[in-house]
């Protein structure tokens, strides 16, 4: 028990609340006397005593409101003049009387009080704290505030140059409170801010800067106070605020500051993030960021100076309401610029700036939907990981690129949030799925059945021959038991008809056989020896696919999918209609019954759905965008075949992918057709052939192979070792002819369009002239010597020629018939080709075509071009191909 003086009344010490009975008349009279006594003497009391008196008066008047009604009238007379005392304690005591008995004072009195407080805030002789308190008192009472909120009295709040910053800040508060009442008053705030306008040249941490931004903030929250204020829920005012001139002016101020005074950028970022963190005002913050994205970002230049703006860029990228494209493109340009300007003394700066950029990218990854950022961010990261001078930055960029490409959005965000829980308010539970192998969601078979109707993998260039053989014939399944082994999956019944025969075992040589045959060396004539040497050189260049990587064929395809059916099937959590569905981590596996070797599967990290069902996407690819990065609405995929048998075929496609909602899409797509022309390759050039001899080499090779594939017996048992040393092959040639009833110009055009790369020689003066004019076929042997019609064969030997005479004769018969028919038809239709018809019997010239068919075969054309018709003589060491070539040649026109 503390010692207390006995003079302290018991009531101050008692713990219980005393229950007071209503005062009697005697009491009241006494009370009135005491009150009158006190009210008469305020001037004689010390400030402390007046304070006690006023608070006592307030209590008494409250309690005896009915009994002593005249109190408030007396107050005015006796206390008003004390308000102008320069003792703030005294002033405050009197003010509390005004607060409690406001009805006793008229508007004029209140106005005078407000004016007095306004003056004492400007009283430089007064101590700082009391100037601040005066402003607080003024704005603590709505009664007083209403007196000074008018525009006329506002200039009284203009801060002076030598006002302490605290006073400046409070005066600016006063202005912004009033300014927020009407649009016309914004200029007042601007005038008020003049006193600290030099903050622009001070460092961002200066007190002046803080004061200036505080004033702007106060203006905003003055217009739109937090909930529970007089103006009701602030949300209703949000729209009108955003449209107001105050807001537009503030936006302009911020943009201007950011552009002109970059040390202030972090302050602006802090200013905006303060708004963003507030529940009521976050839309305003977002709006500021959007404006900055629209008006500031395009005006920024890449370069080292951009580092000033990183805090702001971070804020913009954190905000989900701002499209990230602008920032990412700016950063990409920045990275290009950093790479360009990299020099011996910029190592550290490149590292630090590159890391900052990557940290912004990381924020992007965390905050934005994959579909929005994928394209610009992947471009940025790809550029960085390929070209950026700093190793660490490159590495990190590669990791981010990987993550972007391979992890679906939701999971990616979780992954990136690991270890950052401390900043978040509510730490998200650490997803166990990231550490343990997640229970793999089983593919929804029901949903996956129809995917071929809206996910498409299509060839960039469709095959020339619309293979009627490949028409899916359901009933032909039993036919597939034709020696090609059990069909896998059993879906692709068309395969059976595509590959009618099993590969010819005899065409393949196993190494032991080759080795055995190699021993048999015979005496032969020099002509044959030369032939053999050319052939050995040629075959020595062909890799043996069994022991080394074989020759590969790449067929470009496009992968795309239609959004509408996709969404209908799989559902999609879309925040707006602009957002397209996406597939993540797509894996495409290929299988075929044809002998194409093992076709490597493809991975597409990310794919957006088609916006429309149009073929716009395909047109875009046609323009030759051959970057390895996938485009947002379709992905380029390469089918890589290593044919063991150059035959057309079908390739089955199986797709496996994740949706954004973590469902698994899997199933077969429509198969891709492989045509015979996909197998056409140029013959391999031996390394020791110099550039100027290339055309001659091909021409000679053509002649040699032509001869070898003829019915020559000379080399029939000869074997030619392949590159790799383990295997050898022999040539087993076949020949055929094809008569084409097309005008020579059509034929030349077709050859130039489809076979230009394989032409090795053009003979005949007129033909050479035409072909040379066209400038499509170049770097070949031009043989301008006129040839007789019966000397068509360029081959050195006449024997093989005779051997095929029967065929030729047969063809000729046909051709004549055909030509006649054609001629008649033409004559009946038009006369414009009369000139050609006159000379139709005459040959224009020859075109020699040498095609290499992987893995080791050849296809030779000798086109004898006449007016109106052409005879194509074919020789090959792979006879099954002739069947397809026939159709191919017909499809050429």
């Amino acid at each position: 028990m503390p010692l207390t003086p006995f003079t302290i009344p018991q009531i101050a010490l008692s713990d219980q609340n005393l229950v007071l009975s209503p005062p009697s008349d005697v009491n009241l009279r006494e009370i009135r006397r005491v009150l009158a006594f006190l009210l008469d003497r305020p001037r004689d009391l010390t400030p402390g005593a007046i304070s006690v008196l006023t608070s006592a008066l307030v209590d008494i008047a409250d309690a005896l409101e009915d009994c002593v009604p005249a109190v408030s009238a007396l107050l005015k007379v006796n206390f008003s003049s004390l308000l102008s005392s320069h003792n703030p304690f005294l002033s405050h005591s009197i003010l509390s009387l005004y607060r409690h008995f406001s009805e006793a004072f008229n508007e004029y009195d209140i106005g005078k009080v407000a004016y007095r407080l306004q003056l004492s805030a400007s009283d430089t002789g007064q101590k700082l704290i009391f100037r601040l308190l005066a402003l607080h008192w003024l704005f603590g009472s709505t009664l007083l505030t209403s007196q000074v909120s008018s525009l006329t009295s506002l200039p009284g709040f203009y801060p002076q140059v030598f006002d302490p910053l605290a006073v400046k800040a409070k005066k600016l508060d006063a202005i912004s409170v009033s300014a927020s009442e009407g649009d016309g008053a914004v200029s007042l705030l601007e005038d008020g801010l003049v006193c600290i306008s030099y903050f622009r040249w001070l460092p961002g941490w200066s007190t002046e800067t803080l004061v200036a931004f505080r004033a702007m903030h106060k203006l905003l929250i003055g217009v739109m106070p937090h909930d529970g204020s007089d103006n009701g829920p602030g949300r209703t005012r949000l729209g009108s605020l955003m449209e107001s001139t105050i807001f537009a002016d503030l936006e302009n101020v911020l943009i201007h500051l950011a552009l002109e005074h970059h040390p202030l950028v972090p302050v602006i970022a802090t200013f905006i993030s303060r708004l963003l963190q507030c529940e009521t005002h976050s839309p305003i913050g977002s709006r500021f960021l959007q404006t900055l994205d629209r008006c500031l970002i395009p005006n920024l230049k890449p370069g080292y100076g951009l580092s000033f703006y990183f805090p702001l860029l971070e804020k913009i990228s954190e905000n989900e309401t701002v499209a990230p494209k602008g920032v990412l493109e700016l950063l990409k340009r920045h990275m290009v610029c950093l790479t360009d300007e990299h020099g011996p003394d910029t190592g550290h700066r490149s590292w630090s700036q590159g890391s900052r950029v990557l940290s912004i990218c990381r924020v992007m990854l965390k905050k934005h939907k994959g579909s929005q950022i994928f394209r610009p961010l992947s471009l940025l990261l790809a550029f960085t990981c390929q070209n950026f001078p700093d190793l660490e930055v490159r590495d990190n960029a590669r990791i981010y690129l990987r993550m972007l490409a391979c992890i679906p959005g939701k999971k990616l965000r979780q992954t990136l949030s690991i270890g950052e829980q401390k900043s978040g308010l509510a730490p998200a539970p650490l997803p166990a799925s990231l550490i343990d192998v997640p229970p793999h969601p089983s593919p929804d078979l029901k949903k996956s059945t129809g995917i071929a109707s809206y996910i498409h993998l299509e060839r960039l260039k469709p095959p020339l021959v619309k293979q009627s053989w490949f028409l899916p014939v359901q009933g032909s399944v039993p036919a597939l038991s034709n020696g090609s082994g059990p069909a896998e999956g059993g879906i692709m019944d068309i395969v059976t008809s595509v590959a009618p025969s099993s590969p010819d075992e005899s065409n393949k040589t196993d190494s032991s056989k080759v080795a055995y045959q190699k021993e048999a060396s015979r005496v032969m004539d020099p002509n044959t020896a030369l032939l053999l040497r050319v052939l050995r050189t040629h075959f020595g260049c062909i890799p043996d696919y069994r022991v080394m990587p074989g020759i590969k064929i790449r067929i470009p395809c496009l992968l795309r999918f239609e959004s509408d059916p996709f969404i209908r099937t799989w559902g999609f959590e879309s925040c707006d209609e602009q957002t397209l569905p996406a597939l993540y981590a797509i894996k495409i596996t290929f299988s075929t019954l044809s002998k194409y070797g093992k076709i490597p599967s493809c991975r597409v990290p990310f794919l957006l759905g088609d916006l429309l069902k149009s073929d716009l996407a395909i047109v875009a690819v046609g323009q030759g965008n051959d970057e390895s990065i996938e485009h947002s609405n379709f992905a380029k995929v390469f089918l890589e075949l290593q044919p063991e048998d150059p035959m057309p075929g079908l390739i089955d496609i199986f797709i496996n992918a994740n949706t954004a909602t973590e469902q698994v899409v899997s199933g077969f797509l429509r198969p891709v057709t492989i045509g015979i022309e996909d197998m056409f390759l140029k013959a391999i050039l031996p390394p020791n052939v110099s550039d100027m001899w290339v055309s001659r080499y091909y021409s000679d090779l053509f002649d040699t192979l032509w001869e070898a594939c003829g019915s020559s017996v000379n080399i029939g048992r000869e074997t030619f070792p392949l590159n790799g040393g383990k295997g050898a092959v022999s040539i087993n040639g076949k020949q055929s002819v094809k008569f084409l009833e097309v005008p020579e110009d059509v034929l030349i055009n077709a050859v130039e369009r489809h076979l230009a790369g394989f032409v090795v020689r053009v003979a005949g003066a007129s033909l050479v002239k035409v072909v040379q004019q066209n400038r499509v076929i170049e770097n070949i042997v031009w043989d301008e010597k006129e040839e007789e019609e019966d000397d068509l064969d360029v081959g050195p030997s006449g024997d093989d020629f005779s051997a095929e005479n029967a065929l030729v004769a047969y063809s000729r018969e046909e051709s004549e018939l055909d030509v006649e028919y054609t001629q008649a038809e033409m004559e009946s239709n038009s006369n414009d080709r009369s000139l050609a018809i006159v000379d139709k019997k005459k040959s224009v010239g020859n075109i020699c075509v040498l095609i290499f068919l992987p893995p080791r075969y050849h296809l030779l054309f000798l086109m004898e071009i006449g007016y109106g018709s052409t005879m194509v003589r074919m020789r090959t060491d792979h006879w099954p191909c002739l069947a397809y070539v026939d159709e191919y040649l017909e499809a050429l026109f």
Partner: protein
Amino acid sequence: MAGCSFRAIWILTPHHSVAFSRTFPVVERRWRSACARDGEVETQAPLPSDLEVAAAFTDRKQREGSARGFGICVASSTPGSDSWVDDPVTRHIITLHINREEAEGYMLWPVIVHTSGNYYILVLPLVEPKKVREYRKLYQRNNCGGSVKEHDNLSSLLLSLPCITGAFMVAHAIGDLIAGETSDPEVVATSSSSAVGGLLDTLTGSIGIGVAPRPKPTSVPILASASSAATLMGSTLVDSSRTMTKPIDKDLLRGFISGSMPYGTPVDLNQNNIAAIRTTGFGSADPPPADLRQPAWKPYLYRGRQRVLLMTQETINAALYDREDIPDSFSISGQINCRAELEGLPDVQLPLIGVKPAKVKMLSVHQSAQYSDHGEDKQAIVFSPPVGSFVLARYQVSHATNPAPVKGFYQLSLVSEDGGQFLFRLTLMEGYKSPYCMDFCTIIMPFPRRRILSVDGTPSVGTVSMTERSIEWKIVTSGRGISGKTIDATFSGTVRFHPRVVNKSLSVSLSKSVLGCTAAEDSDEERESSNNSVNVEDVLMEKLNRDLEAVDLEEPLCWQAFNYAKVSFKITGGTFSGMTIDPKSVSIYPVVKAPVEYSMQVTSGDYILWNTLARSPHAAVPKDLC
């Protein structure tokens, strides 16, 4: 809760240990019962011990950046800190978190902080528990900041708590006491050469009891200019400006507290009255007057030779730009000091001359006085004087009738990073006739962030001296005051500095705490920024400004960011505003024959010649004041 009482007073040393503390059990009892009534848990927690207060204060200093705190919401502010409330007043009204090992910690609010003579004076007034609760809501608010348009804002809270204002009065009174300063204003008697003493001198003189000598009263304006001169010398941090700390006279303090605020409730904070009562008491020589009511603030009546001393003191703050786009600005604040040595309890009427032409705004008057404003030229103050010197009235003038006593311009052109050329062209006392007399006039060019190597140049008038951080040009020296003539003074020369040493660590730490970011990109910024400004001078200033420290909210501006010259002068014999008192028309009732002496003096406050060639701070001028 009635009146204004204090639960505790603590005085902390600069090193945050408690040098003096005083608690008031009576008030504490009331606090507890109030808590019990409101059902507050704080009831359980007794007042913190001295150690706990010291720890809490240190803790807050670390949390809030400085002893006073940020005052404004910064990036590092978090809910539950004073700066989160985002008001400069939180540098003066703070919250202490008392952490207890054995029990739950609690929040102590409102704690009034006042610094004086390097001591921190903490006063904890008694407020209703529900007010503390209201503040806690602001303090821990989860939105972006308060507006006065909301209910329960800080302003209305402060308005409803006069005890906070009272606590400040107490804190200031104690501060003055421990610093050995007196709040007595200066009054100069023109007839006698010696300055007039305070109340105690009067009393002791008349009663004849010896009192321990007190330091000579110093006039308030000169003190103010002294502290701003300290600012000019580059020591802006209040916390470390004065290293010397005077030990506290605890007996004096205890006496003052028990006399001025018995049981924690302030009665009279007048130091002199308390000291006089303590020293002399009330004897038979001082019977209360039978027919008159003796005010409580005048415990003794004067006896002796009667006279009235009056003095008008004006301080000019001026910003001279000498530029067309920015008008020069003047503001004059003045006060009338009075010392009425009159017997009994007379009323004095003091007519004022020239109030209307000068557009004088009467800001405040003494408690005993009333200002009456009737008609065009009939302004008067009626008062019943207390004993001793006191400030009778304070006023402000925005429209001076007299020309500026010092006119002209100052140009400083930084030729290189380590040197510059400067030129002054000034006119002093133009248009001032006798009896105006300029006692002294000195111009100081401060370079707080540079060390001066040399100054070349000779002024046309006066002498030049140099310190490490400033150049001082004495145009008129005291003792050789000028009167009735105009002086044209020019001074051109060059100044050289020692090469600059950049102190980066401080700016980095500042930027961290205020902006919440690092200044790691400094090297980048330095290279790039030079491209933006065309002017060499701007580049130099920008470079210099890069490692500026943030000033306290108590400062008007970041002085170090600008080049300027500060003029100090004192003019006697008249006022700048033109408002005067006619001593002959002072009337006293009941009529006595007492001479009235009147003196006038004008001193310079912040009288700044901004460098015409560089950026300078200015403010918009309200239209009605132009």
